[in-house]
């Protein structure tokens, strides 16, 4: 299993605008690495550069420690699954799966044996003689997977492989791909715009925006302490609630919209250069205000919309001209239009510098959550 290393990698098409800017990342061998970002952020371009389908404008690509900038795709020992699967429509499923072996002139008998093994693993045995157009979306997806893994390439690249499937199948295939990767131990680089896929599948994820790395880390770390407001908005559904705050240095607190004041440790306060900050909180950390709560962190809102999902309840309200969400465990009987007294959990706040958008204060109750997860 090979590692993939990108060092100061740039990509430009017109020598003016950089589509991928100065990307530095080492993808460990055997890792499930997810590239995630909104459409047009350069994640597919990055993947195609690793595959060798696009040239690298500047920087170095190393595969298994060896420089691979100018290697043709076939010499990089990788396989790829495309968004539209790129199955050959005129060939049977069997021919599609064995295409890569046939190219390498492996004997027909061996091809068939390998094909049967993999078809069995992916539940495709009875479809081997069919043409791709006679298969459902999920089956085509499996054929594409089979074709990618039959060559035993140490690296597998996937470009939004689940985006053409319906929601239920997608959830199923997420687990299936993850299990497959674990079983084969291959290095898998996975591109998606869906943060749920990123959260649930990756060993590590890399959030990209406008060609630049925003954050790299374990999904849960990225979720808990997003490095900047973009990541905070992008990862998590519904997104993190963000608002601007003013730093009051004398009183050691941050005021939000002249309504709430968050007490801040004076030591931390010294680290804050700018007087304006962005304060964020995850929807699940907004609580219903109890009688003995700290008054300076509670506020009253009118509920605009409510979604009861069975295990949790999603509440939407307007606060200071922006849409905010709260997410509570259980089923809550709340009327739309009703007023509620809410409060922020002051230990769960993310505070960013408004100018540099850097994370200044991380939520401090993450540890508690980690322990709780461990027990479950």
């Amino acid at each position, binding site marked *: 299993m090979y590692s993939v290393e990108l060092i100061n990698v740039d990509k430009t098409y017109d020598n003016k605008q950089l589509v991928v800017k100065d990307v530095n990342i080492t993808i460990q061998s055997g890792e499930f690495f997810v590239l995630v970002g909104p459409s047009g952020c350069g994640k597919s371009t990055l993947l195609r550069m690793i*595959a060798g*389908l696009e040239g690298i404008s500047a920087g170095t690509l190393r595969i298994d420690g060896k420089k691979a900038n100018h290697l043709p795709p076939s010499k990089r020992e990788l396989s790829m699954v495309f968004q539209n699967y790129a199955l050959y429509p005129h060939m049977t499923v069997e021919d599609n799966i064995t295409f890569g072996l046939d*190219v390498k002139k492996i004997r027909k008998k061996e091809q068939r044996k390998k094909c049967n093994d993999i078809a069995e693993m992916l539940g495709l045995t009875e479809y081997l003689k069919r043409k791709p157009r006679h298969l459902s979306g999920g089956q085509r997806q499996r054929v594409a997977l089979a074709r990618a893994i039959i060559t035993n390439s140490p690296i597998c690249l996937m470009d939004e492989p689940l985006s053409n499937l319906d929601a239920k199948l997608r959830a199923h295939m997420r687990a299936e791909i993850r299990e497959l990767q674990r079983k084969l131990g291959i290095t898998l680089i996975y591109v998606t715009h869906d943060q749920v896929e990123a959260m649930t599948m990756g060993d590590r994820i890399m959030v990209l925006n406008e060609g630049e790395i925003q954050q790299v880390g374990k999904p849960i770390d990225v979720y808990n302490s997003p490095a900047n407001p973009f990541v905070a908005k992008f990862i998590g559904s519904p997104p993190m609630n963000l608002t601007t705050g003013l730093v009051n240095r004398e009183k050691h607190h941050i005021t939000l919209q002249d309504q709430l004041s968050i007490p801040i440790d004076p030591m931390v306060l010294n680290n804050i250069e700018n007087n304006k900050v962005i304060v964020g909180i995850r929807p699940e950390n907004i609580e219903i205000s109890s009688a003995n709560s700290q008054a300076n962190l509670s506020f009253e809102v009118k509920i605009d919309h409510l979604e009861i999902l069975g295990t949790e309840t999603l509440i939407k309200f307007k606060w200071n001209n922006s849409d905010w969400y709260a997410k509570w465990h259980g089923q809550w009987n709340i009327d739309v239009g009703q007023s509620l007294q809410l409060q922020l959990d002051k230990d769960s706040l993310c505070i960013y510098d408004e100018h540099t958008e850097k994370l200044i204060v991380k939520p401090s109750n993450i540890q508690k959550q980690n322990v709780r997860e461990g027990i479950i």
Partner: protein
Amino acid sequence: MKNATAFQEKTLTQIDTKWRFVHWRSAILYLLPSMILFSVFLFYPLGKTLYLSFFLTDQQGVANVFVGWENYQYILQAESFHKSIKATLLFVLYTVPTGILISLFLALLANEKLKGVGFFRTIYSSTMGVSVAASAVVWLFIFHPSMGILNQLIASVGGTSIDWLLHPDWALVSVAVTTIWMNIGFSFLIILGGLQNVDEHLYESAKISGAGYFYQLRRITIPMLSPTLFFVVTVSLINAFQTFGQVDILTQGGPSESTNLIVYSIYREAFVNYQFGTASAQSIFLFLCILIVTILQFKFGERKVHYQ
């Protein structure tokens, strides 16, 4: 009460038939333009040809004596018609495969993503815009025994010049070369269109698998192009069977009937020899030939065609 229901039913059926008539009438009206055009230019001439093929005619083409199958018997025994069939088959054999192979080659070249490829695409398809008469005249100059550029080229390399259009062995080849050149534009354009319809991801996937250019060509491009190629082959075959203009301008069927293709032979029979009966019989024969070839092609050729 009973009367009322009966009355209602009656009006209902009346309305129904009335509406059906209105629908039918408007449908016919919509179809009328093409029906008139087809009737005047296709169905009537076809019927008339079939009719004439059973008659002896006078010089004005008026049917005089009913002779039954005699015209057919005559053309099937006539040596000049045998020669004509043989020339036509050879001509089809020369032009269709060569033309399509060249067009495919040019289309593959012009399908590459290169700077200025639009220029070459325009050039390669430009023969579509040249009329048969104009291009035949151009080739007449090229083939000219002494002044023609072809013989001058041969002479400059030190070869002996060839009487392209005047030698019985070369005349058919020369007409075939002209025809291939004229047909390339059309075939090229259609094949290029087919190539551009092939999903780029298929090639990328093949590239990652390590497939070389010719492997991709054999296992992806050609199969994906098969519907287009099938269409081009069918149209080219029919066109080749119906060649007339270039023969008329370049050789007039000569020398010694070596380029007397069927359509030209029909023309001579009817408008030079005034034998409208036998000319009609030849036309029907040609029609059946093309029909059979096309049916055979659909029956056997289409099996290898992959439709999306």
